């Protein structure tokens, strides 16, 4: 132990806090926010281990150990739900995630400022529409009875396709709707990152005779690499947030085997039927998977030489 070791005596630490009180005060609201709205509600997870009965409350309800988890794992739908949740997530990652990057790269190449702003506004708009509207629009377009898409198919000599009530079309429909709604909005962060790239790099490469495509490949993309990685990890953090509302609206008796996910299941089992403990257990399990995936992604990012998120 030498002098000036990191260990600060109790009084010293207090003194430091008092000295920097302005900064600590600034942390306070954020700290309270997380405490009140994120951490205290977590104690509600307790009811996953109880047979929660509203009139007995958390303190009075009987403890049942892992009963609800056992029920979840033995539920006939369990593997279907787990599979659907993960598959939809990976489809989302594979097909949606790259789209905003590509779109941002393309927008970045638009040199006329007015034109660029115009396109940007245009692609942002769908983000402000609610899922109800988007799903309704696609129902009208894809309906078997009078849907324009099916009318066109018939005119072109094809059979009508049952988009809304078939297992095969649920996933493509889901991913397409996400791309349609979110791709434009997703470009914002990438465009901001691209704006921060030193123009000198482009100038230098032009002198060296790099084409527009080469510039994009060798300068723009590597410069936003860390942003991409951070966003990817964040995205994985939302793993199981596949958009409850969206899927719930698309879900029906005919596509349940591919469309039922944890969120919709929690909703039907929990709120509709009042099985609070069971649905809390399901939600708990879902969050655990999310946590594991985030840690995995972060670890991989660090291995790849990026900073990660923590």
């Amino acid at each position, binding site marked *: 132990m030498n002098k000036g070791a990191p260990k600060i005596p109790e009084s010293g630490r207090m003194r430091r806090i008092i000295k920097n009180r302005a900064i600590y005060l600034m942390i306070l609201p954020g700290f309270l926010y997380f405490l009140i709205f994120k951490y205290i509600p977590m104690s509600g997870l307790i009811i996953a281990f109880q047979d929660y009965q509203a009139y007995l409350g958390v303190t009075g309800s009987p403890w049942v150990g892992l009963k609800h988890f056992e029920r979840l794992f033995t539920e006939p739908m369990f593997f279907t739900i787990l599979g659907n949740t993960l598959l939809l997530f990976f489809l989302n990652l594979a097909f949606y995630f790259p789209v905003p990057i590509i779109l941002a790269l393309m927008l970045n190449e638009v040199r006329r400022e007015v034109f660029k702003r115009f396109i940007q506004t245009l692609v942002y708009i769908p983000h402000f529409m609610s899922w109800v509207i988007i799903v309704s629009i696609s129902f009208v377009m894809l309906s078997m009875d009078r849907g324009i898409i099916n009318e066109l198919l018939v005119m072109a000599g094809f059979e009508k396709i049952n988009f809304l009530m078939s297992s095969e079309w649920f996933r493509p429909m889901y991913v397409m709707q996400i791309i349609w709604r979110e791709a434009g909005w997703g470009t914002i962060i990438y465009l901001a990152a691209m704006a921060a790239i030193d123009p000198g790099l482009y100038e230098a490469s032009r002198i060296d005779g790099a084409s527009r495509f080469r510039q994009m490949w060798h300068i723009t993309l590597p410069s936003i690499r860390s942003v991409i990685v951070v966003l990817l990890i964040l995205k994985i953090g939302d793993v199981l947030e596949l958009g409850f509302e969206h899927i719930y609206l698309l879900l029906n008796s005919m596509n349940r085997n591919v469309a039922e996910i944890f969120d919709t299941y929690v909703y039907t*089992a929990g709120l509709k039927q009042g099985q609070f403990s069971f649905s809390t257990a399901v939600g708990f399990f879902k969050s655990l998977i999310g946590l594991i995936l985030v840690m995995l992604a972060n670890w991989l990012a660090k291995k790849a030489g990026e900073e990660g998120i923590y």
Partner: protein
Amino acid sequence: MKKNKASTILAIVTALSVLAGCGGNSAPAATGSSNGSPAQGENKSEPVTISIMANLHTPEVPSDMIEKLLEEKTGTKLDIQWVPDGTYDEKVNASFATGTLPQVTYLKNAASLVNMRDAIRNGQFWEIGPLLGQYPNLSKLKPEVLKNTAVDGKIYALYREVPLSRQGIIYRKDWADKLGLSAPTNVDEFYNMLKQFKEKDPDGNGKEDTIPLTDRNDLIYGAFKTISSWLGTPNNWGEKDGKLAPEFMFPEYMETMKFFKKLHQEGLINQDFPVTSKTDQQNLFITGKSGVYIGAMGDVSSLHPKVVEVNPDAELDVQNKIEGGPNGFGIWSVPGYGSVILFPKTAIKSEEELKDVLAFMDQLMSPELGNLIYWGVEGQHHKLEEGKVIPSEDTKLTDREVKPYQAMQVGGPLTIEGFYEPKHMLPVKAKSEEMITENNDYLIEDPSASLDSKTFNEKGVQLQEMIKDGTYQFMLGDIDEAGFQAVVDNWLKSGGQQIIDEFNVSYESSK
């Protein structure tokens, strides 16, 4: 998480609006005690506050005009929480879980009551059966209906009366006349009507583009259950060899599914009916793309003006009594009540308080207030002619000021003496009312209405989803008879057999 936030905001908004609402009402009128309710005899300086949660069937929050009148006439202060119909059950469940149910809680329907049975049994709600006799109006509620709402033979709920069976057909009479068809009286004639409506170009536009029957994603209030009772399927549960069994284990249920499969394959029904909303379903009918609508016959009064607006030559007619099974005509019925009203102990602390609340409910059921919440104010929302009501034609006004309060009705025409009868200016509406009464002679009742099964309370709803999925899959041709049998087997295995056994035990003991 999202739900929580939304409800917090809702709670804040409600709290604010309640504050705002109370501001204007400073005069605690003493009229309440003059109505002769026993519990309100003594002079109270403070008006009693009654909190209520009610189902909102209109898109907008109602004006508080009727609420003010109610407060004035009963000498109470009302705190009404309006919850949109679409999320009503969830809101009740969530409020129940957090112990924030109001003093007067309206439950949506019989199924919601089943969900609450455990809580009721655990003493979360006041038993009101023994008290009802003390109230002049409440004592008029029908014992046989109250029995259907009972839990373990004890009465906890008041109820809102609804006609026992409103089901029937509404169809385009002008189309039928053009093709020389008369109203169908059996399933074959009905099928023939659909067929002709498809092939014979009833709308005369030279194209085969009509969708004869319009249906929606609802196996109960849509066409399915009604057609199933034409074919003789029991109502939810039926007796088979002296034992109760669920409807889908009867051959008639299979017949119904096959009938729908045929309709679907032949294009006699909208192809997307399992995902069609009620609005879209009605739109097909209103815009003249479709000519037959199965549901509540009373809907004809709201459909008629809209259909005529699109096509002035259109004529509508209603029809019931379609024969299909060996037992002649039959139609499924509800157990005599629509919504039920519970009184949570978390909100009502003492028996004294309960009596105050019941006294208020008793007044709601008086002819004066019963008519007020159902028909609104005379001269403003309706006219009286020969003692019958002619509702105002300004439906926007009545939708905003009266219709929402109808959800708060206690009892109904059969139990409130002096409840106004409507005078129908539209002949077809009058005919539909007659037919609704006529249905009473052919009811197929639900034998399980007053029975109880622990497993059914726990997972009945979830298990029913399985059957619902299977039924749709069969009708759309995704699975065959063996496939449906597999669904039923799975249902039995996942708890269905237990439900059957428990219902039968309960059935035996109730005999």
